[in-house]
């Protein structure tokens, strides 16, 4: 039913651990995947641009969103204390989880305390990040994903590949086949003669899940926002599965990253404009639920909030990298990313694919692993992600900052403690080449010498290069080296002067 839980804190269970270039080299060859992703991302790109263009104050909203998040992050200790106080006052119970293992232990115990062996879940990035479903399965508790795309992923024994649309790598035909083949094993089977129209597929999911909603006693969610002042949690969704999980069960457990705080109720006026338009490209998503602790006779009697660190404070300690914690998980950066579009989400090896994953995963987990060390390079630095980010995270800036951490090492915070890390392995030849290049480029005479040597030997230059150069010449011709460099032409025609 589910894959083996590897028990690695902060890692998505069963996710690829191969470095990004290897995983991407395989996925770019998958024509079906490429076609599905191209279709989906291009559809949403145009819609988002239209939804954003409707607001002529988008720039001001974006700046305010970034500023509110920055204020929160710079005073996160203050706001966390405030949040705990207000949630507790409203009848909720707050738990603190320093890492994935602790969060999973807390949630497992809370479910066990209810005596239930089944839970319904709203799509939540935080619970994917910590591998909660697999941890619950080990304790004999079945977790049912209720978001349509998560259901497709769970039934297909697959992995999510997108923040908003985890099954974006599947097209309608594949989804129909998964429903036909797998629904029966999990509950109500797919209707006879199920076709591949999205409307029919959505209806099949409605019928399959309704039984689970009506009998659910425990719901598990994440949250898009937590308001420190009031203790209010906010879940933004489309299908109504969120409302089902948040209001029908007797016990609600919300696992939320500590960076999801906003200081005040008023601050939501910014994010409830930024998020829907950036995410599903709608003026407003169909359903938004807010709740403050427990309400008498309406919704769960018990509410638990599990506040998750799991590398977030390590990220916070980095002055350049901390802007990644502004992220509101809209996925606009994935939808415009040319690398994501070709490589697909699985190559990023975590719950967070795309550009945001390329800066978040290496910070949450550290750059020690070969996958994590490869992620900051999974970008052509084209900047499309920064342009659409509703909270103005300068993803290219953070990517380059993390590349520096990979090749130069230096001081970092790892699991709460300061540490000095060494440069990553496997960059020795590159480092030597960079040094040599820097030396030559800092000595124009040497640069000129090299250019002249290349010009003299140009008749002998091969069309295809061996070794690392093959990566270029496998698909591209090399430029021809000219007979004379610009520098030599200038000296010859305009006279040499001023060279040091």
């Amino acid at each position, binding site marked *: 039913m589910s894959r083996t839980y590897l028990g690695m804190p902060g890692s998505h269970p069963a996710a690829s651990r191969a470095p990004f270039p290897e995983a991407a080299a395989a996925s770019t060859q998958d024509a079906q995947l490429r076609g599905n992703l191209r279709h989906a991302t291009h559809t*949403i790109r145009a819609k988002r641009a239209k939804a954003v263009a409707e607001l002529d104050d988008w720039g001001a909203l974006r700046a305010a969103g970034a500023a509110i998040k920055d*204020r929160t992050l710079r005073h996160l200790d203050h706001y966390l204390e405030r949040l705990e106080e207000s949630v507790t006052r409203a009848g909720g119970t707050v738990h603190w989880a320093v890492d994935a293992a602790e969060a999973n232990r807390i949630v497992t115990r809370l479910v066990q305390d209810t005596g239930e062996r089944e839970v319904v879940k709203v799509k939540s990035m935080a619970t994917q990040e910590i591998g909660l479903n697999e941890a619950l399965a080990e304790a004999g508790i079945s977790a049912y994903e209720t978001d349509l795309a998560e259901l497709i992923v769970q039934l297909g024994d697959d992995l999510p590949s997108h923040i908003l649309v985890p099954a974006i790598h599947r097209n309608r035909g594949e989804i129909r086949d998964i429903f036909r083949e797998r629904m029966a094993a999990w509950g109500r089977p797919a209707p006879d003669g199920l076709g591949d129209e999205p409307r029919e597929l959505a209806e099949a999911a409605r019928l399959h899940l309704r039984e689970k909603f009506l009998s659910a006693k425990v719901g598990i969610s994440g949250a898009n926002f937590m308001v420190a002042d009031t203790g209010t949690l906010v879940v933004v969704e489309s*299908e109504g599965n969120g409302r089902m999980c948040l*209001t029908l069960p007797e016990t609600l457990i919300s696992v939320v990253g500590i960076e999801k705080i906003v200081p005040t109720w008023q601050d939501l006026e910014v994010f409830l404009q930024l998020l829907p338009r950036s995410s599903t490209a709608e*003026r407003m998503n*169909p359903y938004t639920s807010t709740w403050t602790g427990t309400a008498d006779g309406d919704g769960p009697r018990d509410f638990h909030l599990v506040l998750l660190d799991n590398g977030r404070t390590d990220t916070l300690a980095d002055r350049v990298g901390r802007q990644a914690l502004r992220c509101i998980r809209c996925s606009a950066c994935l939808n415009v990313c040319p690398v994501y579009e070709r490589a697909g989400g699985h190559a990023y090896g975590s719950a967070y694919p795309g550009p945001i994953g390329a800066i978040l995963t290496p910070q949450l987990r550290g750059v020690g692993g070969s996958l994590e060390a490869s992620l900051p390079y999974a970008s052509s630095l084209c900047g499309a992600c920064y342009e659409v980010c509703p909270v103005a995270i300068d993803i290219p800036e953070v990517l380059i900052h993390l590349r520096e951490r990979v090749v130069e090492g230096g001081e970092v915070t790892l699991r709460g403690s300061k540490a000095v890390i060494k440069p990553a392995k496997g960059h020795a030849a590159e480092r030597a080449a960079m040094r040599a290049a820097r030396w030559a480029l800092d000595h124009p005479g040497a640069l000129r010498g090299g250019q002249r040597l290349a010009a003299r030997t140009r008749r002998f230059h091969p069309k295809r290069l061996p070794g690392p150069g093959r990566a270029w010449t496998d698909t591209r011709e090399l430029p021809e080296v000219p007979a004379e460099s610009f520098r030599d032409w200038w000296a010859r025609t305009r006279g040499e002067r001023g060279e040091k």
Partner: protein
Amino acid sequence: MLGRVRRALADVPRDERPQDQPVARDYRRTHGDRTHAERVGLLAENLADYRADVHRCGPAELPALIARLLAERGARSVVVPAGLPPEWLAEADVERLPDAAENTARDLDAVDSVVTGCAVAIAETGTIVLDAGPDQGRRRITLVPDHHICVVRARDHVVDSVVQGLERLDPAHPLTWISGPSATSDIELDRVEGVHGPRTLEVIIVEDAAEG
């Protein structure tokens, strides 16, 4: 964990207060100056754009309209919030299930429709907000039945913008913001209406006679 957070923020001066970090709120409070009629028109337009069925009537016509919508739907039973004005359902020939804590989700699943009021309606986004007030009831009654009729009193409820809507709402109440019937974009990022929540959302905008 708070210790970790504080260590991570070693670069923040000790005497810096949160409000020392500026937040410029120079975005708009509303996106346009509208007359009341324009505002209500925009609400209707945006609700319809996301596939809600929109009806408009005067107060005197409301009971007949609700009765007609229920009849057209073939609804035989309806959940009724405790504080729903009784005259709204005066002409409807349906079985009434009063909203109550004892009603289970299965009880609600057996009911055809629900009729509620609302707390706020936001024109720019086509959103109605329920705050569990007396004429709206518990959150689940507008979730489990497949048909929701929501009555918006134009003069009392309609605001222009998200900013204005939030100001009117009390976070202590559980809120449900509804913008059209449930939908999903999970298949090829293409929007399809109707998944788990009510697949049919009918919004009745009631104008006072003088506003007509």
